[in-house]
């Protein structure tokens, strides 16, 4: 026996066991905290009870009744239109910006980059009220187009960020080679640059899509009357108290954003492997 054990002090192996136990407890409790609410939410969207509190058996009927809800289909349609529209605009503009910021140097670039990333860091409510004020002052009607503009404004910086990161792993001598072989700038862009950074562009588009599809705050301020997208619609339902219908709708939104997130992860990983 070592002196430590004789004296009843913790030995090295005791300490190691304690460390590994506390590690497992830390990991398990944080993951439980992060996931249990979501799992229960989804589980109870299949609960055969109006009252929600206890498990009364499995049913998918809440999903079946979703389309009967007033304005529910309208909200879904608005969400899809706004999200798809803004994803196209923000992906195109953001990709162009990301490529330009990687390729060129110009006076005031640093300031421009800071300016471009500010919408990521300032609180969203501030952005939302400024857009409300802007639309009001230029007499632009609130609604679907206003939401599209608002969402595009806060998703563009994310696309720029992702595309710029994708460009940083890009070998610019390929562009140089294309130009030396007589390709125009335009051809170089379409035939060389964009195909190579395509995984980055897709990840940017997916990020933009899920940010917009999830958005509550900006939509809440600029959607106008009768144009609630799904998150604002759910918010309205939630204020009337809990109901399994809300669970079902929430589960669908979760599923949509999760699918896009997993897709983004996968593409990013494949892109990284391909570049090696």
């Amino acid at each position, binding site marked *: 026996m070592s002196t430590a054990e004789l004296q009843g002090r913790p030995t090295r192996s005791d300490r190691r066991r304690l460390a590994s136990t*506390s590690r497992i407890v830390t990991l398990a409790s944080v993951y439980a905290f992060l996931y249990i609410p979501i799992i229960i939410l989804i589980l109870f969207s299949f609960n055969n009870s109006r009252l929600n509190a206890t498990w009364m058996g499995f049913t998918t009927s809440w999903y079946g009744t979703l389309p009967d809800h007033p304005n529910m289909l309208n909200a879904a349609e608005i969400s899809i239109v706004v999200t798809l529209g803004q994803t196209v605009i923000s992906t195109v503009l953001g990709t162009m910006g990301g490529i330009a910021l990687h390729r*060129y140097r110009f006076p005031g670039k640093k300031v421009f980059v800071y300016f471009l990333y500010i919408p990521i860091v300032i609180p969203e409510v501030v952005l939302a009220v400024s857009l409300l004020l802007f639309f009001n002052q230029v007499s632009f009607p609130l609604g679907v187009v206003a939401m599209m503009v608002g969402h595009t404004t806060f998703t563009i910086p994310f696309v720029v960020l992702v595309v710029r990161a994708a460009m940083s792993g890009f070998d610019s001598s390929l562009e140089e080679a294309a130009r030396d072989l007589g390709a125009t700038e335009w051809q170089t862009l379409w035939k060389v640059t964009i195909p190579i950074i395509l995984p980055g562009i897709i990840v940017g588009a997916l990020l933009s899509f899920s940010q917009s599809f999830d958005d509550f705050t900006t939509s809440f301020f600029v959607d106008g009357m009768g144009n609630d997208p799904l998150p604002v619609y759910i918010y309205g339902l939630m204020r009337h108290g809990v109901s399994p219908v809300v669970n079902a709708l929430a589960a669908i939104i979760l599923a949509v954003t999760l699918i896009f997130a997993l897709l983004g992860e996968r593409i990013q990983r494949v892109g990284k492997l391909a570049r090696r």
Partner: protein
Amino acid sequence: MELRSYGDVSVVNPQRRSLAERLKRLRSRWMMWMLLIPVAGWMIVFFAFPQLLMLFISFMSQGVYGGIAYRFTLDNYIQMFSPVFLNVIWTSVEFSFVVTVLCLAVAYPFAYAVVTASPRRRMFLLFLVIIPFWTSQLIRTFALMFLINTSGLLNTLLLQLHVISQPLNLLYTPFAVYLGQFYAMLPYMILPLYASLQSHLESPEFLEAAQDLGASPAQAFWKITLPLTTSGIAVGSMLVFIPTLATFFIPLLMGGGKMEMVGNFIGNQFLSSDNWPFGASASVGVIAITLVLIALMFRFMKNAFLGES
């Protein structure tokens, strides 16, 4: 192009660049503007201009029937020092501070536990953090509401286990707002801490040196690991503190509107109270605070990275 050596025949004199070279340069410049103008234009029209408009309106008066009267005034800024508004600011700052500290206290040991896992398991554990990061904050907030409301699962469970005899009123309390914000922000603290811990543990020379010199694990942690991960702590804290300061829908949903943060206050000036100029000045104030915090974060990161290298 710079002069590299006098013996180099390919040294280019800018004046004597060939026509082809100049044409290429011109085409490249043209392409640059084509790529930059759309995104710059969009952000100037829909981001910079609305913010400037906000600044302008913050110096205007409130109209008689709500709305804006275009008369210059400093009242909105003076009003920011009224007890009502100072109270809102204080509530928000205190709230953000507590949430940040809680996130740090939980995320640090957690990130440490993830980093010290085997590389393959590490990727999976990290992926499990990224999923909530990607999922809707509104839905995650609703999941919490569903769990802790008076007839929710938590109360039902505790009643059935006879831990409590009356359902707990957890929802629509300050506690619920703290819980909701903590739940939303935790992944934002974990990811930068993970990144900074990983880069620190990948070069274990300092730790090994400390051990060789007889430092206990605790000493090694406080004297080596913690100081070397300050950049992660700073970035994570800012990523939690800033959005929390002007959080909007979490207090609305979890607190039932009873706990008013500065974000809700601004929103209400534009929606229910119809005092847009005052809302504008509060908004300008929040942006100013945010930008100062970000500048501090960058300075801190730079210092920390210089210290690390």
